[in-house]
Each structure stands twice: as C-alpha cells, then as structure tokens.
C-alpha cells in the first residue's frame, strides 16, 4: 500500500486477486479510487490496502475510510473448500456491512445462475439474498480478455486453444454473450459512482452476441494467431460426455459443470432480469492482446495501401510506422484521419523512406523510357479526365489556365 491514504473515495472488493478482481483493481486505481482488497492471496498491486479474507471465515473489520461501495466477486471456483451454505453466509455478512455503511452493494453473478448445478444454485441463493437487502445483482455472460489471472472459463478455453491442435465445433452451436473484462470493470466503477441500480437484477450485454464456435475461432485467430482444426461435436454428445466424466472422475465434477454450463447456457432474457446495454467491444478487438483492434486494423490497411504506392512487397518497418502514425493522429483530436488523409500519409511515408521515388535510379535503356512514357501518358490522361470531371461537376471561378 502506498498512497491509499490520499484518496477520498474507497471501494471494497472481495476476490481481488482473481481474474475480474485484478482488472477491477487496475481500472479503479487508474480512475483514482482507493481500494480495500479482501482476498486470500495478496493482490498484484502494491497501491491497494490488502486485508486477508477467506470465505470460510467471518468478515474481517477494515479501517475507517470513506467507503463508497462494496463489490463481491469472491467465489470458490474449485467448489471443494467452501460449502454452499458458507458461500451464502459470507455474502450475507457483506451485504449487511454494506447496509451499515449505507453504500451500494454489487454481487457479480452469472448467466448460469439458476441452473440445476451446484454453481447455479449457489449463485441463485446469493442473488435472492442480495436483492432482499436492496443490493444489485450483476449477471454477465462470457467474460474474456485482459491478462492471464486465475482459472476462469475463458482461461480454460484459452489454454485449450494454446495446447491442442483442434477445437470443438459444436453442432448446433450455443450462443454466448461475451463481455470484455475491462468493459465490465469500467461499468462496475461507474455503477458504484451512480448508485441507481439498488434492488435490481441486471444482465450486462456488451452489444455482441455470437456463437461459441465463432468465439473460439476468434480466439485462435486474433489472440494466438494460430490455425486450429475444428472438429464437429454434436451438442448432445458433449452433454453425455460430461456426465460420463462426472461419474468416472467425481473429483473433476466442477470442470464438467463448467463445460455443462457453457454448452447449456440459459437465455439472456429470463423473468426478473433486466438486460442492460453497456458499451463494449467486438470479440475480434477484445481478443487482441492489447484489448483493441485498432492497431491491427491500421497494420492491415497500411500493408494494403502502401503496396499500392510501392508496387512491391511492403517492408514491415513501413507498415509499423503507418500504424503508429494513425494511432498518434487520434490522440488529442476529435476527428480521426479521413481516408484521403490516410492515403496522403501513406504517400508521405513512402516518400520519406529509402524506397521513395527520390531514390529511384533511372537507367538509360530506351525501353524503360518508353515504359515510363506510356505510364505517364496513362496517368496523365486519367488525371486530366479527373480534372475535367471535377471542373464540370463543381465549376470554380478562381481556377483557370
């Protein structure tokens, strides 16, 4: 902990060392929040106040600080150490503490709350409890992106794609509602600030809904930049397989439940759940290591545009500079570069490079001169026609000659 004392607003986060917790801490610190992190393991940041907390034990006291909200993320993912009753009791202690402080309480639930699995039942119980105390239940679909932390569902898929040469292609494919972890963290902080969601059960929809197969394909293509062979898997067969796993290896039942939860997703619109549209990003962008697809877009465009000017394979350094220039142009300007301006940028980059026309050597061979002459006549005629068209369409009295 370094500068928490200087903040005038604090946030209590349980499960702060988990996947979503870490990203929430980063976003909160970025926005000037002080954070009290309740977790078993110390959080990855030194500038938050860590208080050891285990769901099996009662809620510890924390120092008197201007608390603005409590976000409950902690959940025993292994489902071995904490009993369902203790999970619910821990949540109740937290929500009661929020009522004492008179601050909003947010419980991060799942799209699968209510499924006839242990996970689904526990989440549903806690949801009911939180709503009874006037807290907010936040359901999310598939949370993805960011950096590796914990062993959430996304990271299990990620590990699969990284390790195995094949990916399952479910028939029919279940639909998922992906939400980038940074978008989720940003919305949670805004919600704490606004505190208008008390007593509501919300489903955060990032504006994108896609098939699980497509999501896996994007994971291969944009995050790992690899090709994986899709193996068709009948959905019914996958369900049977998970049941077999549960019977054969009872210790792996939690993995089987995750897979089951993934392929048997509950629909987004169920009774008693409000769907809330939040600003999100497409999986193609969010799965990119930087969390944004802009750089990739500029690189692709740069390769294509520069090739038109160079007429040859484009040196990578030039493409990189094209992307950097486009990114730099977006900083501090309300208007992005127009297409014409980006074309001019490409010309400038070619011009200010070792491959520019000023470095071209003109051999004296007559056929080369002839070729260039034909080229000039061709483009000259094109330009003249373009000029005449421009003049005809938009007569300008100041232009003459």
């Amino acid at each position, binding site marked *: 902990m370094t500068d928490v004392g200087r903040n005038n607003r604090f946030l209590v986060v349980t499960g702060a060392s988990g996947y979503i917790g870490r990203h929430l801490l980063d976003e909160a610190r970025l926005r000037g929040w002080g954070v009290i992190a309740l977790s078993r393991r110390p959080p990855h940041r030194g500038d938050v106040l860590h208080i050891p907390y285990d769901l099996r034990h009662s809620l510890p006291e924390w120092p008197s600080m201007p608390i603005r909200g409590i976000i409950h993320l902690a959940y025993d993912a292994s489902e071995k150490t904490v009993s369902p009753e203790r999970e619910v009791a821990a949540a109740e202690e937290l929500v009661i503490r929020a009522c004492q402080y008179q601050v909003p309480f947010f419980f991060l639930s799942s799209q699968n709350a209510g499924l006839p699995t242990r996970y689904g039942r526990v989440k549903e119980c806690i949801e009911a409890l939180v709503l009874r105390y006037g807290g907010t239940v936040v359901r999310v679909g598939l949370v993805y992106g960011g950096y590796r932390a914990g062993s959430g569902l996304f990271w299990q898929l990620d590990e699969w794609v990284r390790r195995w040469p094949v990916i399952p292609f479910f028939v029919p494919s279940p639909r998922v509602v992906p939400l980038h972890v940074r978008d989720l963290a940003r919305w949670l902080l805004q919600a704490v600030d606004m505190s208008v969601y008390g007593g509501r059960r919300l489903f955060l929809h990032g504006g994108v809904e896609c098939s699980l197969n497509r999501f896996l394909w994007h994971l291969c293509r944009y995050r790992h930049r690899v090709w994986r062979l899709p193996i068709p898997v009948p959905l019914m067969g996958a369900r049977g397989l998970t049941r077999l796993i549960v019977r054969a290896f009872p210790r792996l039942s939690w993995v089987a439940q995750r897979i089951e939860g993934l392929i048997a997703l509950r629909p987004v619109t169920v009774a008693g759940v409000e769907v809330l549209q939040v600003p999100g990003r497409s999986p193609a962008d969010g799965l990119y290591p930087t969390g944004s697809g802009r750089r990739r877009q500029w690189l692709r465009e740069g390769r294509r545009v520069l090739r038109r000017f160079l007429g040859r394979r484009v040196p990578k350094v030039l493409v990189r500079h094209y992307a950097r*220039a486009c990114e730099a142009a977006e900083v501090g300007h309300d208007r992005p570069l127009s297409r014409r301006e980006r074309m001019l940028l490409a010309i400038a980059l070619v011009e200010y490079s070792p491959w520019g026309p000023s470095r071209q050597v003109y051999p004296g061979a007559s056929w080369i001169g002839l070729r260039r002459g034909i080229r000039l006549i061709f483009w000259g005629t094109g330009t003249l026609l373009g000029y005449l068209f421009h003049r005809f369409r938009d007569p300008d009295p100041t232009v003459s000659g």
Partner: protein
Amino acid sequence: MGITTQWDAIVVGAGPAGVTAARTLLEGGWRVCLLDAGERPAPSPPRMDLSDFRQDPRHWRWFLGERLESLRALERDSPKLRTPVAQTVLRGYGAALQVDADGFRVVGCLAPGGLSNVWGAGVACFDAEDLSDWPVSVDALREAYSTVARRIGVSGNASDDLADYFGRWIPLQPPLPLDPPADVLYRRYERHRERVRAVGLTLGRSRNAVLTESLARREACTRCGFCLYGCGYQAIYNAALELEDLRRHPALTYVPGQWAEHLDVGPKGPQLTTLDRRTGERHAWTAPVILLACGTLATTRLVLGALGWLDRPVRLLSQPSMGFALWLPGCLARPYPNRFFGLAQLSFVATSRAEKERPITAGNLFLACAVPLWELTSRLPVPPVWGYRLLRDLVPSLLLGNALFSATFSDHTVTLGQDGKLRVRGRYRPELFRCLRQVVRVLRRGFRRCGAWLLPGSVRLVTPGADVHYAGTLPHRRFPGPTETDVMGAVAGLEGVYVVDASVLPSLPAKAHTFTVMANAHRIAMALYQRYHRA
C-alpha cells in the same frame, strides 16, 4: 532627453520590424525593453541533406508532425505554412487576437522571430513609382535598404533583367547556383530573351535573404533542401537569430511571453498592459517611447483600442496572390536532385502594354522537389493513388510558381468592435479576375517560349490573407488624419507611440514587402534617435 524611467524605449514584438528597430536604437545607445509574445523559438532542422535525412522511416515525425499536424492543415494555401514547424509557431494566434474573419485567413506567429520563421526570404526594394503614395522619398529609404541588406545578407544578381525591378543599390552576395529545371528554363530564356520579353514576361534571378558567403555566425547555404522547414545552417535570415545576438547586449531587456493587450496614453506618457502567457498575470510597462511592431492586425488592435476608434472600419491592404505549376518536358526523366535550394530560384515580372509597362504581377519560381510529394498529390482533383503515380515521375521536371498582385485589387477592412473582437471583412475586386486572365495569357505564352508549359488547372488564387501579405491599416501620411501615422510612424492623439511594422505602409505594389518593412523600421528608429538627441 529627459528620460528617467528604466528604459528609453519599449519595442513590442520581436519580428523582423521589432528586432530591426530595437537593434538600431541599441546601436544608438538607448536602453531598450523588447516585449515578445513568443516563448520558445521554433525548432531548428538537422544539419544534413534533406535527401539523406528522409531515408530513415522514423523521420516522418519531423515532416508531418508528431500528431500529423501537417496532414490536418491542408486548408492552408502555402506549403511553408503547413510544415510542423509552422504549425508550432502559428498555433493559437487567431484565438489570442480574438479575430472574427470572413473570407480572410488570419496568420500570425507566437514565437521569437515572428513571421520570419516561415517567410519565403524574398527581398525587393520599392522604387519611386511604388513610393508615390508615401510621404517618404526613395532617397530616405535607400540608405535604410542598404543597411538592412548588409545586416541580413542578400544574395542575387545585380546585372540581370530584373535588377531594376528589385533595386540596384543594395549590396549583394553572389547568387546561388540554379538547380536543373530552373537552370534549363533560364538558359532558354537567355537564348530567346527578346521573344519572351515581347509578350510581356521578364525573368531574372531571385533576390533572397539567404547567404552564399558566411556572415558573422551564420554559414553559407549548403543547398541541403531543408529550406521549407527552416535552416539548420542559419543561412536563411530569421529575426530570431538576430534576437539571440541582441540578447547579449547589456542595454537590452528581453521579456518573452508578453501578449500586448491594451495601450493607453496618460499624463506620464504611454503605458502598455501585457498578459503574461505563462502565469496569466497582467503587467504594466511605461517608457517615453513605445514602438509597436507586433504585426499588422495586433498593432491595429492596440492602436484602435487606444484611440477609442470602435465599430468604425479602417482599410486593410491585402495583396492577392496566385499559384501555378510549370512543366518542362525537356527535364523529363531526370533524377531527383540530391542537393537543391528549396526557396525561390527565379523571379519573373509580367507586364502589360495597356498598363504602360508597369508590372501587373511579379512572382517566383520554386522547384517542385522542395515541396513534399504528398502535398502536391493532395492538390490534384484525382484519387491520391493516381496523383502519386503521375507525379512521382513528373516532379523532377516541374516548377511551382507564385505571383503577387498590387493590393489595389482588394477591398478589405478591419473593425474593432465594442465586444473586443477584431473583424476582418472584404473580398477581391472584380478587376482582379480580368487581370488574372491577362496574366495567365502572358505567363502561358512567355513560358511556352522558354520551353515550359503552364499546366492546365494549376492556376489558383490564394485565399485572402493566407500568404500573410497584408498591411497598411495605419498608413503614413504627410498630413495624417485619425487612424493614420505621420512620416515617423507617430499616431495622432497617442503621444510617444510609434508604429514601425507593416501597418504603416501606405501602399503595397506587386512586390514582397518584408524587406521594405524592415528598412522602414530602421528609418523610423534612426529618425527617432536623431530627433531625441537633437532635442
């Protein structure tokens, strides 16, 4: 003299006029305070050849700006004003001046050295006919021209066809060697001189404030090609360089970051209020003499405010100018030059018999290689890919030209409103368009006889004000009325206030006027010095 305050004179503005006036007064032994709105000098380009420097793909930042400022400034007419250097020094001027311009582009500089940071370094002297509206004779200005030319260093040819047009009496350094397309054009002109002059076109070497022989700390031009972005060798005159020298003078107090807001004349003499751009504080400055040299519009604002001349327009002389492109088929297939000079190489004068052989326009020719290819492409009315493919082979055989017209072809006014806004309104006169057609005919015929083609569609009038050729809001008059100045630049009703910048020029012929502004500032400062010492 009776001067008891800290300084004998305050000079407001560190542009060419302000620095010239300050230097003249300092040499006369005065204690001078120089107030400048600029804070940081413009960045200086590297000391290497342009063709070598642009071989590193990282250097696009230098040419386009860290945030691609040049690409976003396509609305500016002059390539020189689109460079990142120009963007840096010109930023924020219009907002600081609170200008409301309609049909007029306001350009001003907030860096030491003023607009000399971005000038084309063209030098021309006004002749007797140009000075016919002035209460000042040619002889009075001649000595000032020579003094200033000796100080800033002018190169050119004293014996070509344009020697009379530019003025023969100023000391000159040898001209720079011509680069291929300009060289080819000039050789053909010399071969067919009589035929070309018969259609009303005269060519000569340009006069530039560029050194071909070293002068004090400044080095001679190496033809590195960086001219558009400034000069790392300091061969191109910039008032900021002279300011650096002056700052070592013990009698000079230089205060940067002071934006002149308000001028007042009380019983204790003139008083100037400035806003410190760094701290936001206001300061009051008094001295027996205040010389205003903060640019035509800023000076006009101060003077009209001090006179209480509100909501009443004063005339602004604005020179129309145009640009065009010449193609020399004889230079096709030449390689791009590795070393070249990026400013004016040749100058021309177009005359008309109807105008009794008076120049109706005059201008300069530049190498197209000096202007970035992306910028030339942006001017073509075709998709950039087409434009690029056409120009990459064509550029070594292209010359770009600009031409100035007399300010009599424009009607512009400046008004200081009650709300504190400076309104600039006006338009070009219809006669200009008739004249333009005539000029284009002369140029097309004349250059055709020199083996060059005026490219169709390339002739374009520049937006009024965009090339910063405006002046004359507070003109010198023998018997000055309100908002006019006497031969010393003194404003009637403002005791102790003298105007030395371009706002005192009574007329603007078809010539670059910066050199005349500097000479006039020197003349006024000399006259002031002599008057006070005689007293």
